[in-house]
């Protein structure tokens, strides 16, 4: 494959992996477009996987990039990035952020399942349908989780709002993980390897916590005195 100081293209099983070297985003983008458009006939029809390293991109910038590539007949399928913000923005636009094999150029993210407090992510907005939030540690959402959205966390999940989507706590096998919400009405709730559906709610909703007791998912109203 052709080598270019700033842009490398490599054919892998999942598609065409394009790696950008670290530098300012406008330069990297210009180099990418120039290089890719020159080779458009050759690249057309392939799935493009773009590895942008640690650049942080807005959803609007990613969208524009995807549109510019598609104007040249190229389809952007996945964006690989070390930045969680870019990953989330890419996911919101429906782009993949992982491919099955780890890329050779970048090191795979740490496999540690630490449940210490430092590994939590806090999101302050409502998750709309189609949004997927994935994190290796704990997840806290201040806002609602709408039906059709999902949270997959290695640790606990706390929703300060209405939980009406799908959640999976302890996704890497941690059976002590819990799910808390002001209104616990998920379409589906999973803790470690157990799956549960919500029974039809009667009356007003109360803050509740769901956890595994003897291998079963149990939801209890929050009662600080009872523990």
């Amino acid at each position, binding site marked *: 494959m052709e080598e270019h100081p700033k842009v490398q293209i490599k054919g892998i099983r999942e598609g065409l992996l394009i790696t950008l070297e670290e530098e300012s985003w406008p330069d990297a983008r210009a180099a990418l477009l120039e290089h890719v458009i020159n080779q458009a006939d050759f690249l057309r029809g392939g799935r493009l996987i773009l590895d942008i390293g640690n650049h942080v991109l*807005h959803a*609007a910038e990613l969208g524009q990039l995807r*549109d510019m590539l598609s*104007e040249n007949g190229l389809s952007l399928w996945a964006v690989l990035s070390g930045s969680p913000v870019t990953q989330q923005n890419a996911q919101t636009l*429906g782009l993949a952020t992982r491919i099955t094999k780890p890329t050779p150029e970048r090191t795979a993210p740490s496999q540690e399942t630490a449940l210490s407090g430092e590994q939590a992510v806090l999101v302050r907005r409502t998750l709309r349908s189609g949004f997927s939030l994935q994190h290796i540690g704990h997840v806290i959402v201040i806002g609602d989780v709408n039906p059709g959205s999902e949270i997959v966390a290695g640790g606990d999940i706390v929703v300060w709002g209405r939980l009406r989507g799908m959640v999976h706590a302890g996704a890497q096998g941690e059976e002590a993980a819990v799910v808390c919400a002001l209104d616990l009405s998920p379409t589906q709730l999973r803790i470690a390897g157990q799956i549960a559906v919500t029974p039809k709610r009667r009356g007003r909703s109360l803050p509740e916590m769901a956890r595994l007791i003897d291998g079963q998912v149990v939801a209890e109203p929050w009662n600080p005195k009872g523990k």
Partner: protein
Amino acid sequence: MAAKVVTVTSGKGGVGKTTATANLASALAAENLKVVCIDADIGLRNLDVVLGLENRIVYDLVDVVEGRCRLRQAMIRDKRLPELYLIPAAQTRDKSAVSPSDMVRLCDELRPDCDWVLIDSPAGIERGFRNAIAPADIVIVITNPEVSAVRDADRIIGLIEAEEKGPARLIINRLKPAMVKREEMLSPDDVLELLAVELIGIVPEDENVTLSINRGLPIVLDGKSRAGLAFRNIAARLRGEQVPFLDLNDQGGLLGRLARLIRPGGA
């Protein structure tokens, strides 16, 4: 005369995007504002049919984008409402024929010479949707008060916010107040509780709408229709007027007045 570009979208198909686009455009044109409608649903065009202009199509949006005609040549002028123009979609191509930047360029060319540009978005979340929202200043999302439509509306609002084209404004279309009362249909409050966006209008279900589509005569031109009145009110709100929402439980007419007399405690 710098125009505002409004895209009407929904996610789900069949909720009333084309009907709403045709009616909002007609209502604005009836107020002597110059309106250009664009049908962005390439391959499945409908806006021409609903406006009653399908027999007059010579050039379409794809002809303009591919340079086979000038923009003015593709604009069909409505005979009933002389301030209303339509740029129809192509029926024999598909959404890949046009790109988001084509749409932005086209709207930039239209902006200096008209008051409003209304774009009828296709259903879905792919290229056709992205084409339609690319040039938008305002995005209107239409939904029906029904669970599957609201799910899709939530998704589309998320995408609109992600593309930084928000905040979206909502039209709840085809509401049946009697069913809402019997708790057989979602109420506007139920819908807003999930979608959490600004409501710009509620349009009641009206059998006359089907007739108006088949005849190519937008329902806003029918003075007796509640749906027509609702669309006229939405057009007024787009123009910045404060219009109170219709009381959809008001039956109107002699039967309504009798019902109100009989109710204990008076009207």
